[in-house]
């Protein structure tokens, strides 16, 4: 699966990493439901780190569509509330 972090580029994720990202994705949705801003920032940072660290960057010369679009790193709690609804970014 390919994930794009807005403003940073695309990463290829293995199925195992996809599962881990999905778990964090659900934790973010939960944090937003709980109106817990601190928990959101912790989980969102974890998602970004997971994608950056475990993903393999897609080359600039490759033109591929993404399966998941992760909002930019400076996304605020208010903005995130519009993104992470229902199943979050990755459908369960």
């Amino acid at each position: 699966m390919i994930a794009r972090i807005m403003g940073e580029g695309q990463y290829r994720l293995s199925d195992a990493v996809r599962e881990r990202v999905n778990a964090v994705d659900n934790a973010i949705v939960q944090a937003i439901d709980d109106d817990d801003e601190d928990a959101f920032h912790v989980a969102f940072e974890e998602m970004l780190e997971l994608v950056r660290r475990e993903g393999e960057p897609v080359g600039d010369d490759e033109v591929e569509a993404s399966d998941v679009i992760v909002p930019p790193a400076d996304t605020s709690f208010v903005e995130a509330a519009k993104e992470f609804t229902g199943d979050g970014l990755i459908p369960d």
Partner: protein
Amino acid sequence: MAGMAGRMSTVIKAKISKLLDKAEDPAETLDYSYQRQLESLQQVKKGIADVVTAKKRLGMQAQKLEQSVVKLDTQARQALAAGNEELARTALERKQFAQTELQGLDQQVAELQAQQEKLTDSEKRLRAKIEAFRTKKEVIKAQYSAAEAQVRISEAATGVGEEMADVGLAMQRAVDKTEQMQARASAVEELEAAGTFEDLTQLGSGQDDIDRQLAELGTGGVVDDELAKMKAELASGSSPPAKGELGPGEKQL
């Protein structure tokens, strides 16, 4: 992109399908979306230039404020040495205010610098994707039948369309930031025009509207401390030499 969730994905998908719907003929679709990509690249370049301009403007204001801080500090010392504590206090209040403004400006210049770097990275990435698309476009035109081409075009345009949407968002954020900074720059310019950081000795007694407002800003504590420190330095004779020439109004002190 089936199965993609999230508002951002939906927005991007809508933009791309709008792009693909523009033309009927596959070759035309390819050329049209390539054209749009080049336009989008031009916009990013302009966006970067705007950020640079805003940054320069704020940088120049910061320089002016630094000069004001030095000048007001010198005046405070001169006033105190001449026994005019009231004028010294006024100068220190203004100095304090100028320093606060200066800190704000420095921070914003740093934020704009970060925006500029992000946009420059985005521009580089988009340029590479457009080049890859251009190559792919020629291959598709040459090798595929119309029906097959439609699928390939859709794939390629979706990939590059996403990149354009990504850069578009980065641009929007940079524009918002730049506008905020420009509002701030205008506010500082107004303060300057009102004489807030001017040579105090030109204002006669040094008491006017600005000073009353500054006194209300509650910089008193800091100003009291600094005034006390300056007095102590004067008393012990360890006062550092004045950094500037004595102002033309010095005789009034």
